[in-house]
């Protein structure tokens, strides 16, 4: 089937539009964050810029959603046939989850830390990863594309949120320890005083990771089932498979560490961080530097 060039072009315009909205949202989040000091006594601090930031995030996400949709329509298929499409869909997924969550709880303090990686991901997508809209290569023509890749996109988004929470947790914990030892606050306080305490962050990050782990397990299993029909074996230690396994083991280790005496808190957080790095490595580097069967997901 032919590619609808008009849709593909409009898709690009919408993606760029969403980047513009996100950029303004980032400034608004940054302002809200800067004003957000002493939240407990002055809950209204930074409220206004926070609201503006949230509205801009909604706008950007709607634009991105349309961009993703048009991209899919341009080739009459799900929009995750290559890394560019995977990135814009994944970013949309993360932002969408964040915004839906924001309807229930106040996540303005967190917005800045998500909008930054979201912009980074979109920036990489439109510069390094961009590919023209095209038909799928034969190996991807399977309904498993819908199942395996959508699970991978959601997992990627949740891993990113979990990773950001983990980094925040480690920073806050460091500062808390500093203060508990009687030292004066460090420069880190600019950040740590504006986010929840390390225990709350730890719990939140655990919730995110505990939610995503079964989904990632499913992603790997679905990938294996697909690999069996596409390549004739369900597991062949292809570099992408190997690193997906490494990531899986990493997060499994994190979940175990949290219930093990002596590994709670910081040490578990570091494991989560390492697991996240293996995921990022798998996503960006394995595609470009290792020859494997997943080459199509690169350029």
């Amino acid at each position, binding site marked *: 089937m032919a590619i609808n060039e008009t849709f593909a072009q409009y898709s690009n315009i919408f993606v760029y539009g969403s980047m513009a909205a996100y950029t303004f949202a980032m400034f608004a989040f940054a302002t809200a964050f800067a004003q957000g000091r002493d939240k407990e006594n002055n809950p209204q601090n930074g409220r206004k810029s926070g609201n503006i930031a949230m509205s801009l995030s909604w706008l950007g996400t709607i634009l991105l959603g349309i961009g993703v949709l048009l991209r899919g329509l341009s080739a009459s298929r799900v929009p995750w046939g290559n890394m560019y499409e995977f990135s814009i869909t994944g970013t949309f997924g993360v932002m969408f989850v964040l915004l839906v969550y924001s309807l229930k709880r106040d996540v303005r303090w967190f917005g800045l830390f998500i909008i930054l990686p979201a912009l980074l991901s979109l920036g990489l997508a439109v510069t390094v990863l961009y590919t023209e809209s*095209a*038909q*799928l*290569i*034969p*190996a991807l*023509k*399977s309904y*498993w594309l819908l199942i395996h890749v959508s699970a991978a996109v959601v997992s990627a988004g949740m891993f990113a949120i979990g990773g950001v929470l983990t980094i925040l947790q480690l920073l806050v914990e460091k500062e808390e320890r500093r203060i508990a030892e009687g030292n004066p606050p460090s420069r880190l306080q600019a950040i740590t005083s504006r986010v929840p305490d390390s225990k709350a962050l730890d*719990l939140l990050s*655990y*919730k995110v990771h*505990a*939610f995503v*782990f*079964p989904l990632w*397990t*499913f992603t790997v*299993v679905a990938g*294996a*089932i*697909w690999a*069996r*029909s*596409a*390549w*004739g*074996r*369900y*597991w*062949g*230690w*292809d*570099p992408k498979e*190997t*690193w997906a*396994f*490494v990531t899986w*083991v*990493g997060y*499994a*280790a994190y*979940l*175990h*560490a*949290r*219930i*093990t*005496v*002596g*590994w709670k808190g910081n040490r578990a957080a570091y494991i989560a961080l390492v697991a996240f790095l*293996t995921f990022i490595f798998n996503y960006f580097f*394995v595609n470009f530097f*290792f020859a*494997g069967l997943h080459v199509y997901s690169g350029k």
Partner: protein
Amino acid sequence: MKDETTQNIREENAVVPISALGWVRWFWRQLTTMRVALQLLFLLAVASIPGSVFPQRTQSAMKVNQYISQNPETSIWLDRLGMFDVYGSFWFSAIYLLLMISLVGCILPRMKIHAKAIVSPPPNAPRYLKKFEFSQSFATKGDVDSTFKKISEIKTHLKQNRWRVIDGEYFISAEKGYLRETGNLVFHLAVVFILLAVAFGSTYGYRGQVILREGTSFSNVLSQYDSFTPGRLFKSENLVPFNVKLEKMAVTFEQTGEDSAKATDFGATLKFRENASEEYSEKTIGVNSPLDIGNSSMFLLGWGYAPHLIVRDASGATVFDDVVVFLPQDANFTSTGVIKIPDMQPQLGIQGIFAPTGIVTSDLGPHSMYPDLVNPMIFASFWQGDLGLDSGVPQNIYTLDKTELKQVGLHDLKPGETWELKNGTGSVEFVSVKKFATFNIASDPGQNWALLGAILAIFGIIGSLYIQRRRLWIRVVNDEGQTEVVVAAISRHEDVDLSEVVQEITTECEKLVNVAK
């Protein structure tokens, strides 16, 4: 997994074991601690990484040989360490075997404990509930006895919400979420099960590759495979003698630029039957739709062009009439192939480049500029002399040993064209272009078990992470003359919603009695 007992084990570890049995017990204790299980998990992750860095024999023996010839000195050591077969190496196996034993060692005692927990009722409520982190209380107007009677009605509510309930002297004790531990155990057992299924499948299964040209057929016997990798305990009697014929290899192209295209779809139409007494059935298989036949499956891996050539000798008699596989070298299917004709005087060797859309440029020489058949051409060089086939050394069918050969011509041919060899020694005719397909044929008797294990693992992990194991107590007490109802709950793990549970039950209790303002 033995978090609660870690302390005891540490103390035991302090004692240096003396007897052999002592060492075994010490080792077993170590192996089945969560700490060691964690370390083994890490080790397994780290150990699997080299397999993605170095080429693996199981994936491409050719790439391994290439790597070895490029780095001869380091390769000796890398090979000794098993770096070219990481997932079959002794150290990789050692790690996962230890991990499996560690898992089983953790799971078995926990299964026993959990089995007991499932059949036994919830324990009695502790005396002082207010000391718990998640507790609430309120005062009532009646005395302890009448209040407890009214409060007891909460049991129906609790049972409706799947709590397991007992009551005693002025207390109600309830517990739920047993499925959490069940899920946890199922998950870990399933992981062990998957490992066993993988091992079983690779020991008793096989995989092989076959190249079929359009119009040729294949019988599932060992000798007809181009390459074959059996499992350690595979027996060739287990091959089901099915028969497959490649009728047609169809490819659809999509134009991606002015002079480039990608294959967007390809399918091989096969006629097949499981035994000679059956009628042939027909099926078109593609990249994501294999053919299941016998105890095996047949997968389409790739395709290429196979020109049909006829060679005649000086007398005009046909000495060669076949469709020859030319292996594709680039995205536009510039393909190379070799034809050896020993039954000629002198012997003839043809080295050819086939191009579906042929062109000759000064920088690239003869090549193809488009993958579809627009202007098919063979650029052939003809060699006469001794092919070296009688030396007894097995030869690669895709290369020509030119030591005893002399080039006698260089010519390009289009379908239908014939080229006469010098001095009337014979002629070569390019008849037409056909296609070939490469297939993977594999049998993995463990794969359905592995899938079952994977499904169980997913359900297990969902249970163990999403279900909350909770204990709930309600006690009616007399606190210095004032009757009070105390509700408390605990959880064995982080349970963010526990305070909400206590709140909800307290509200339900308040509805049952006269609350003292």
